[in-house]
């Protein structure tokens, strides 16, 4: 149901969607029940000539049962929700599967820049590829990202991956994702970061292994480039405007 509205392109997207549906079913049941009872009581007990109201304190045992029983059921539902909620959280934010690739994500007013390992597969070597606004990843590979901010609080969100993590200045926060569908997806900033907040868009491009390898070769080192017009690696602190030039 959820996928009608937004693609699911990472391995944990479905676990979040399923949790959403579970909660929707449980709270939907209670919501409808409560609304039905509310409206039914309003209709049933509309003012009628000659019908006196009942004097009830609410402390009568046989009546208070009608509060206590649903209340216990609500608590049961709470437990049914909280356990999977924590499990989903645990699998996404706490347990991290071993990384096949690591990328670095820098947030700044108002652009995303990325540092990806070149063909050697290692970060902080000469052939690292630095890009602005575009993150290229391989499908079906587990990625770790190291998230940093250069100025204010930003939030790194890829809706199709169901991924969201704030970037705080001064901190490095690590997370992971494993894309499982080829395509191009939005990267949003979801934390108010100033004037250009709405312009702080990026794209994540999920490619097949071959495409990604070709992209790596094209961009890793200008001298190895097969195309003469391949863009030079973007220095770390280039702004979006400069990078586009």
């Amino acid at each position, binding site marked *: 149901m959820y996928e009608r509205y937004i693609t699911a392109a990472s391995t944990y997207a479905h676990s979040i969607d399923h949790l959403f549906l579970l909660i929707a079913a449980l709270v939907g049941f209670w919501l409808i029940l409560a609304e039905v009872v509310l409206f039914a009581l309003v209709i049933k007990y509309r003012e009628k000539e000659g019908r006196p109201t009942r004097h009830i304190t609410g402390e009568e045992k046989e009546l208070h049962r009608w509060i206590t029983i649903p209340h216990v059921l609500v608590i049961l539902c*709470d437990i049914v929700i909280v356990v999977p909620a924590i499990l989903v959280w645990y699998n996404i934010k706490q347990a991290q599967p071993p990384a096949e690739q690591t990328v670095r994500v820098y947030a700044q007013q108002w652009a995303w820049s990325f540092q990806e390992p070149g063909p050697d597969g290692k970060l902080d070597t000469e052939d690292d590829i630095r890009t602005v606004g575009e993150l290229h990843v391989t499908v079906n590979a587990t990625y770790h990202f190291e998230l940093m901010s250069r100025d204010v609080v930003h939030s790194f969100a890829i809706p199709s991956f169901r991924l969201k993590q704030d970037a705080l200045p001064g901190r490095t926060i690590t997370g992971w994702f494993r894309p499982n569908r080829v395509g191009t997806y939005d990267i949003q900033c979801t934390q108010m970061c100033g004037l250009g907040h709405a312009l702080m868009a990026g794209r994540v491009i999920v490619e097949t292994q071959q495409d990604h390898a070709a992209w790596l070769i094209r961009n890793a080192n200008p001298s190895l480039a097969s195309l003469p017009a391949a863009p030079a690696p973007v220095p770390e602190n280039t702004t979006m405007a400069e990078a586009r030039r």
Partner: protein
Amino acid sequence: MSEQMQHAGHEQAGQDHAEPGFFLKYCWSTDHKIIAMQYLFTGMLMAVIGGFLAYVFRMQLGFPNHSVPGFGLVTPGRYNAVVTMHGTIMIFWVAMPVLIAAFGNFLIPLMIGCDDMAFPRINRLSYQIFLLSAIVLLVSFAVKGGAFGGAWTAYPPLSSNGAYNLTPLGAVLWLLAVALEFVAFLLGGINFTVTVMNSRAPGMKMFDIPILIWMIVLATVIFMASAGPLIAGAVMLLFDQTLATGFYDPQRGGDPLLWQHLFWFFGHPEVYVVLLPAMGIVAEIIAVFARKKLFGYKSMLYSTWGVGILSFVVWAHHQFVAGIDPRMANVFTVTTLLISIPVAELVFLYIATLYGGSIRLDTPMLWALGFMAEFLIGGVTGIFLGSSGTDIYLHDTYFLVAHFHYTFVPIAIISVFAGITFWFPKMFGRMMNETLGKIHFWGTVIPFNVIFIPLFITGAAGDQRRIYSYAQFAEQSRPALQHLRTTSTIALLVMLAFQLIFIFNFFWSMWNGKRAGDNPWRSTTLEWTVPSPPPHGNFAELPTVYRGPYEYGLPGRADDYWPQNAPN
């Protein structure tokens, strides 16, 4: 602030017995009813401004990049300022003053049977500081750089550094206004608490206090206990802005997360600060119009206490993905879902009160029932966001926006209309027009749902909040989503248009409504035993209380209600 408090307590308490002039009577009065009106009208004026801001940004979202009639083109900077101010105004300058200060001031002395607040001049000072805070906030629209646009949460370093937010003056004024507003409500709230604790009519024991008064007092106590750390945090933020300290600057030994914690340690209890008075208003109204004793008054009270205490241990659910340690999120998920236990109890008790009643659907009752029906939606959608797993995706999307509007609109709009239509006869001595009232009710509640149900969908589809245009985001600029946004905007226009009916009804009825008499709703509580509007000093003879506040439909009595002050 304690200085002002003690100082005010020291001035002469004498009341002029000669007829005072307009200024002294309406602007410098210590009468709790006048101060209540000052809060009410200031709050309503701020609501008009907040509503206009909502109109501006919804127009931009519904019809992107068209000039908004009455405002002009919405640039990104203006958009940020408008959403920031909408949030700040609606919570701090509409919900708080109207729900707590206006209803609290008007009703506390009347409902507990005394002549005024325990400290009338502190009360006056509270309003004056509040008015000053509102003026400071509005002035910030006019300063160089414009009003603050860093969201009502004001996360540093964006809020602390003018080079980042580009509104160096606006940010300082915003913070000053909020701080002043807190001082005003601390003064007023402590006064409320002391009055209810110490000045009740003889015979009014703990469980004879109307539930609304309980809830207002609990709300002010929660406010007082939670606002302290944020006041300290605001001083630190102010120094970061003006004295170049580095409390929240990571480059200089500070920590931006500290502000987030201090803010939400206040921010979450704040939800209950405004929720409790709203629920109290609704409880009073359903008891009167269902002619029923509240179902389980004591359970209601204990649940309210439970909500109040639990509200202090859930705050970090606003920060699940904000960079807190992920293990802490589990603790806060559990506490968050715990809060559903007392809240569910409260809702069940409210619904159960209708059972066996004799329900009259006058306008106040419609609003009260509307509150219950709509607030349920707001309550259950909170579960999606309180569960850490789904919050990863839904955090800061329009799903969240729709959720909290389904709580805050019932709180700050629907229950306020319920309260105004219910106590209008007591405030002004005349009845409001029922037909216009019902038209206004349906014209508000139906569009309200049409505004926010589409936003649940756009949020689930990934619309993040505080974005002036989705043009940069391929997934979000699909026409299907834009249709939903436009629908929402049109519904807002309809809803705003229907508010004109209320404004007309309000002022027309003030002078031309049917005369109300002392007790038009045949209610039991003490405020209905005095003339409408109540004279200075309220009670000709101070009442004595003989029983609890909700004695309706007692078998064997001629009347179906038994006032609290009737000896037999």
